[in-house]
C-alpha cells in the first residue's frame, strides 16, 4: 500500500519555489512531519514544504501527489520523476516534468518554460499552454527530450522540441517560431499553426503539422507512396492525443511529405495536412 499526498498551497510565494524534492515515491515512505520537513527553496532561502503547503494523505495503490493552488511560481515539479504520478490542479512553473523518466505528470493549467526538457520516458500532459523550449535541452546541454510522451493541449512557445532526440511531443494548439529546430529524431506534431522557421536544421525525425507552413528551400517535396508508415505514425498520434484532438481521424487523411532539412542531412520528414 502506498500514499496519495495532497499538498495545498497556503500562500502565494513572493519568489520562485524549487519543488524538486516533492517526489511521490519518496513521500510514500514519509510521515506527515517528515514530509513537512522536505526542503523547498524560496529564491535562495531554505524553507520547508510545511512552510508553504497544507499536507495530507490517503492510502493508495501507487504513489501519487496532487498539488493544489496557483503554482505558476512552483518550478521543477516532477523533476526527474522515476515513478508514480504528479497532478497539478492549476498552473505550474518552469521545468515541469524536466528529466521525467517514468510515471506521469499532469497539470490542469499552464506550464512555464522548459517543460518536459530532457525527459526520457513516462507521460507529461499539460492541459493549457507551455512556454518556450518545451521538450528542449536544459541550457548548455546537447539533447532535448529523449523519450516518453509529452502532450500539450494548448499552445507552445518558441523553440519547441529543440534538439529533441526521441519520443513523441504533441501540441494541439499553435507553436512558436523555430518549432522542431535542430530536431535529432522523434516525432513532433502540431495541431494548430506553426511559427516561422519550422523544423529549421532538423536532422532526422518526423514533424506533423496542418496547413501550408512556409518552408525553407532546404526542404524537398517528396513523391512516391508513403502510406504504410503514415498509417503507423498517424494511428499512434491519434491514439495518444485522443478523440477530441486535432489528430483524431488523422489516419484517414492524406498528407504531403517533405524531406529535410537538406542542410543537415535530409533524413527528416515533414508531413503537412492541408
Amino acid at each position, binding site marked *: 500500500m502506498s500514499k496519495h499526498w495532497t499538498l495545498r498551497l497556503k500562500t502565494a510565494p513572493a519568489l520562485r519555489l524549487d519543488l524538486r524534492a516533492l517526489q511521490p515515491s519518496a513521500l510514500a515512505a514519509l510521515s506527515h512531519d517528515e514530509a513537512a520537513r522536505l526542503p523547498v527553496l524560496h529564491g535562495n532561502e531554505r524553507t520547508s514544504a510545511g512552510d508553504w503547503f497544507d499536507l495530507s494523505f490517503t492510502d493508495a495503490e501507487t504513489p501519487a501527489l496532487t498539488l493544489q493552488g496557483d503554482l505558476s511560481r512552483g518550478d521543477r515539479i516532477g523533476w526527474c520523476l522515476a515513478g508514480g504520478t504528479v497532478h497539478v490542479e492549476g498552473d505550474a512553473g518552469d521545468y515541469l516534468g524536466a528529466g521525467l523518466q517514468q510515471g506521469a505528470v499532469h497539470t490542469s493549467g499552464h506550464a512555464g518554460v522548459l517543460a518536459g526538457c530532457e525527459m526520457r520516458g513516462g507521460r507529461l500532459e499539460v492541459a493549457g499552454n507551455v512556454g518556450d523550449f518545451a521538450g528542449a535541452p536544459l541550457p548548455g546541454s546537447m539533447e532535448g527530450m529523449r523519450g516518453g510522451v509529452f502532450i500539450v493541449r494548448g499552445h507552445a512557445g518558441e523553440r519547441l522540441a529543440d534538439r529533441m532526440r526521441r519520443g513523441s511531443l504533441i501540441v494541439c494548439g499553435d507553436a512558436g517560431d523555430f518549432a522542431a529546430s535542430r530536431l535529432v529524431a522523434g*516525432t513532433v506534431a502540431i495541431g494548430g499553426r506553426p511559427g516561422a522557421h519550422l523544423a529549421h536544421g532538423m536532422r532526422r525525425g*518526423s514533424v506533423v503539422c496542418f496547413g501550408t507552413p512556409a518552408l525553407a528551400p532546404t526542404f524537398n517535396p517528396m513523391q512516391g*507512396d*508513403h502510406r504504410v508508415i503514415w498509417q*503507423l505514425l498517424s494511428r499512434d498520434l491519434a491514439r495518444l492525443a485522443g478523440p477530441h484532438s486535432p489528430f483524431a481521424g488523422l489516419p484517414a487523411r492524406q498528407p504531403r511529405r517533405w524531406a529535410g532539412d537538406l542542410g543537415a542531412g535530409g*533524413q527528416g520528414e515533414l508531413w503537412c495536412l492541408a
Partner: protein
Amino acid sequence: MTDCVINGVSIDESFAEAFPMRGTRIIVTAHNITWARHAGQTATGFATSVIACGAEAGIERELSPDETPDGRPGVALLLFAMSSKELAKQLERRVGQCVLTCPTTAVYAGLEAPETLPLGKNLRFFGDGWQISKVIDGVRYWRVPVMDGEFVAQETTGMVKAVGGGNLLLLARDTDSALAGAEAAVAAMKAIPGVVMPFPGGVVRSGSKVGSKYKALSASTNDAYCPTLVGLTPKSDLDERTACVMEIVIDGLTFDAVADAMRAGIAVLCERGGAAGVHRIAAGNYGGKLGPFHFHLRQLLPKDHA
C-alpha cells in the same frame, strides 16, 4: 489393446511423437489481399520439412485490415526451424527474397517474446544508406526505399520454443476418400490458431521413417504404411481394406495448439465416419525416442467419446 471405434472410424491406441523447434510468427501486409497472399505463399514455399528445407512454414491465416498494424489486409505466417540460429537465417532469407521483393508489402512481428529474431534489422542494409528508422510507440521500424515507394519492416519479431511434428495418419479405402478426408481435416485444423500444416495442401503422402538402408539418407519411406508393400515388408501395419494412406503434419507454437489441431482433425474425420472412406486413424512415432512431446490419439477424441 482395446478397440476404439467412433462412427466406423478406428482410433489406434498410439501417439504422435513431436519434437522441440523454434518458432516465430510474422505479419505480412500488402495493398490488397492478393499481394499479401503472393508474399505469404512465396515466403513459406519450399518449407515442408526441416529434413531438407531448413524450415517448416505456412500461412496461419489471412488477416482483415482491422487486424493489422497498418490497416491493410495481410497474412500471418508461422515459421519453424530446429534451432534459433537456423530460424534466424531462414527468416532473413525468406523475408528478404520473398517479402521485400513482393510489391507493396510490409512486415511486422506477430509475436512478442523475450527472445527476438532480426526482421528488418539486417534487411535495412538493402537501403544502401538511404534507409531510415522510425520508433513508434516504442517499436522500431525500418523504412527502406524501393521502387514502389517504401518497404517498412519492424526491426525484430519474437521467437518461442515450439512443437513440430504432430501428425495424424489417415488410412482409407482409396485415394478419393483419403484425399477428401484429409482435405476436411486440414480445413478444420486451419481454424486453430498457432498451427500450420506445412506440406502441400497440409498433406504429405510420403511419410517417412528415421534412417535408411542407404547411409547417405537420414530418412526414407515409411514402408509400414505403404499399401503397395503389404505382404512384402514384414513391418506393414496395413490390412486389406487400406489402399491409400495420407499424413497430416502439424507444427505449432505450443503443445496445446498442436493438440487442439489434432483434436479438430480427429473430430471431423469421426464425424464423416468410416463410411466416407477413412476407416482408421493412426499416428507416427519412433517409440518415444525422438521427441519429448507425445500426443496420444485417444486423449484427443471428440468430447462425446473422451
